[in-house]
């Protein structure tokens, strides 16, 4: 097992809800991320999946320093960031970079490609001496497969896929160990998606990167991830290798998610075990007690309301799953009964 590059411990992010005419008092909180523990190993891709609103993006923001955690900690290369001075944090942050979802809005329309990709060097001036920056930018452009002649163009002159490459190049500039990809391909056409995914995979090999890959599309995650975590209402429900999750899901929520993935083979449609969840996702401002999924779970019993199931490995199921009644059920592979 290689070293752990990133680790979170009981990471929590609550957004306060306030009310009042003159003096605003806090009346509650949106529990966007509510006790997340993940580890990311060197060279690994950890996929995070979940429905929209489950806290994936907040997790990405916490990891990249765009939000400060309410409690819990983030450790990079074994060092807890909260113990460092602001100066040191800034330095440590270089190791975690972000690729954003929408390539149309994530690039400053008033800056040329060269400026965008070169900006990290200006912010962290000690990384590259002034004279070498231009060459480094060219290098990055090469690396992500863009035409080097286009460095002086503006973002709106590029296609979505090209723009996402620019975004990736920007993230790579500081030679980070970790890249958090927040839905990096969901805004792209399917054909372009594949190119970007391939680029990410190639870069991982070449540069020894670790990815946190956030997506709502299970198949995309399966394609790229070594391990997968499933999030629901700010918590990780189940985590394990891609085969663990896709072929041997033990958490009812994971099973429900997987059963909703469209089946490409029309002859097999309608044959597999489909789980239709009832009700809506509860409000993250007022999540259910105990297991957050219990309100929609067909297996729920009294204990689910009383006790929050820990995310642990259970006998017979070797990967962690936060369910009192974790049990494998194959929902992906349709069985043709003949």
């Amino acid at each position: 097992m290689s070293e752990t590059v990133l680790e979170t411990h009981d990471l929590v992010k609550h957004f306060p809800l306030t009310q009042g005419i003159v003096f605003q008092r806090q009346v509650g909180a949106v529990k966007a991320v509510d006790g997340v523990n993940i580890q990311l190993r060197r060279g690994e891709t950890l996929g995070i999946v979940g429905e929209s609103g489950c806290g994936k993006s907040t997790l990405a923001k916490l990891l990249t320093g765009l939000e400060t955690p309410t409690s819990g900690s983030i450790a990079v290369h074994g060092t807890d960031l909260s113990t460092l001075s602001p100066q040191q944090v800034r330095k440590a942050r270089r190791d975690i970079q972000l690729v954003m979802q929408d390539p149309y809005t994530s690039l400053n329309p008033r800056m040329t490609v060269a400026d965008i990709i070169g900006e990290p060097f200006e912010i962290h001036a000690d990384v590259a001496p002034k004279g070498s920056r231009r060459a480094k930018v060219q290098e990055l452009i090469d690396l992500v497969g863009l035409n080097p002649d286009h460095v002086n163009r503006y973002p709106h002159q590029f296609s979505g896929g090209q723009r996402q490459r620019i975004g990736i190049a920007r993230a790579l500039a500081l030679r980070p160990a970790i890249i958090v990809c927040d839905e990096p391909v969901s805004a792209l056409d399917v054909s372009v998606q594949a190119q970007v995914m391939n680029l990410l995979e190639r870069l991982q090999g070449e540069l020894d990167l670790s990815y946190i890959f956030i997506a709502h599309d299970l198949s995309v995650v399966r394609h790229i991830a070594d391990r997968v975590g499933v999030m629901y209402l700010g918590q990780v429900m189940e985590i394990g290798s891609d085969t663990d999750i896709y072929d041997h899901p033990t958490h009812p929520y994971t099973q429900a998610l997987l059963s909703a993935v469209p089946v490409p083979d029309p002859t097999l449609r309608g044959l597999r075990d489909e789980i239709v969840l009832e009700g809506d996702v509860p409000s993250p401002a007022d999540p259910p007690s105990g297991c957050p999924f219990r309100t929609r779970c067909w297996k729920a019993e009294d204990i689910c309301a009383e006790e929050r199931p820990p995310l642990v490995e259970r006998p017979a199921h070797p990967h962690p799953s936060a369910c009192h009644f974790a049990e494998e059920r194959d929902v992906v592979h349709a069985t043709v009964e003949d």
Partner: protein
Amino acid sequence: MTDPSSMTTGATGTTAPDAGAGADDAVAASGSGKPSSLWGDARKRLVRSPVFMLSLLYLLVVTSMAVAPKLWTRQDPFDCSISLSRQPPTDGHPFGYNLLGCDYYAHAIYGARPSLSIALVATAAVVLIGGTIGLLSGFFGGWLDAILSRITDIFLSLPFLLGALVVLAMVSARNIWTVALALIVLGWTTIARIMRGSVIEARNLDYVQAARALGATNGRIMFRHILPNTIAPVLVYATIMLGSFVAAEATLTYLGVGLQPPAASWGVMINMHQVYFDTDPWLLFFPVGLLVGTVLSFILAGDALRDALDPKLQ
């Protein structure tokens, strides 16, 4: 009077002009080498707009009067003889003589400078002050925003003209600086509002978040990312504001608190001769014409600029 605040919401309609300026993949495919930017595109559109070019031409003429009046006339506007008072236009004196028997054409030329200076000084300061306050307020939010917004509310709730009168009553002296000061004290709020709105919109845009994730400082984010993308509506409004400040100077002068003779602004010329409208209408016609032309040009240029920068019209 033409009150700057009367154009308030007119300009706010223009949002950050880049939103959705997304080009299709086809754009990238066409590999013309020249880089083009939003301002570049806008420039192309402006050059093709006859209204804008005419306004610009007029403003250039007026500006040249203000900068180098000697280009336009050899007459000394203060070489006067009371015996020539209010003589109608003749050869060599196309605008006739004013009340004091000075060459009126020379006065009209020299009058451009104070009128434009006040508008320019006031607009520059208003953009600087209002822009800074709007930027800080929108960017940092929280208690700073609360305080700055309350202060903005206070100034906004004072009627523009009355506030300007109070400021001018305070200083007593009447020159370009004090008149500009009165316009500034009351004028910055609208810019601050526009700026704040744009900044709040821009603050949460992805590319700002991206810069933040890179570890960019607040200063860098404000000046490199937010400001360039929010300044367009402010500049459009500022152009229109230039026009309304030219008119405001005339109005303040009419009320007796603007510039005073011997200063030769258009407002002073209008004020000095308005009572002769029945008998010697040309005395009013020339300064009013120049003034209306200037205000008109600024407004039309501002309009054209807004259209050129409006992504929805592209």
